[in-house]
């Protein structure tokens, strides 16, 4: 990816609602257009990050899975 990631959050092992809540806390420090990367292992994070972006207007620009770790790259609105 060409754009740089401003912040990476290691949320592995955390259960609902902390992956979302901690991402919401951390994204406050970003400027609009900057990217945050969240790494989670909670399978519920997959629909939840999609729902959260739908609700907040932040853009889920990338989501991948590697060996049970879900990676979400979100652009702040």
């Amino acid at each position, binding site marked *: 990816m060409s754009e740089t990631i401003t912040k990476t959050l290691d949320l592995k*092992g*955390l*259960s*609902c*609602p*902390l992956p*979302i*809540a*901690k*991402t*919401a*806390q951390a994204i406050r420090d970003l400027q609009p257009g900057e990217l945050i990367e969240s790494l989670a292992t909670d399978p519920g994070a*997959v*629909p939840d*990050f*999609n*729902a*959260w*972006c*739908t*609700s*907040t207007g932040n853009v889920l620009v990338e*989501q*991948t*899975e*590697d*060996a049970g770790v879900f990676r979400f790259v979100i652009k702040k609105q």
Partner: protein
Amino acid sequence: MATMEATFEAPAPARLEHVPHKKLVIMAWSGDLDKIWPTFILGTTGSAMGMDTTIFFTFWGLFPLVRNDVHITGENWMQKMMSMMNRGGTEHLKLGKMNFAGMGPAMMKRLAEEHHVATPDELLEVARDLGVHLVPCQMTMDLLGLSREDLIDGIDEPAGATTALLEAQDAVTLFI
């Protein structure tokens, strides 16, 4: 490092055709651990989603806001007795079912720890940081003889049913 990185299909989020609700109001009536827990989970999440979130704590729901180091509350013997039978604070909550004289909550807390589920205290901290309004019911405070000093820091000024219902008028409202 070559890793097997797969792009996966997430379920498509529901498209919002309507104007999404921007407020969440939860009436926290129960002080049971298994009810106050989802109350804090939903409140925290609502605020994380950008919803203006308020939790009103009324009747038994007010006990979780009592400081953990406060043992007996109340001004008269009835209020004091009630606080002895139903000690406040997040560390002293009982389960709505399978309490088994405290064994149930102990097991539940251990399971939560093993599965990295945030405790009510942790959620409360996140909720406060995300700006969730935590409003104690004034009438319940009077009824139970609870003073502002008996309650934890970082909560809003006590209010009544009218304030609660005014907030609820244009909000998603849950009674837990």
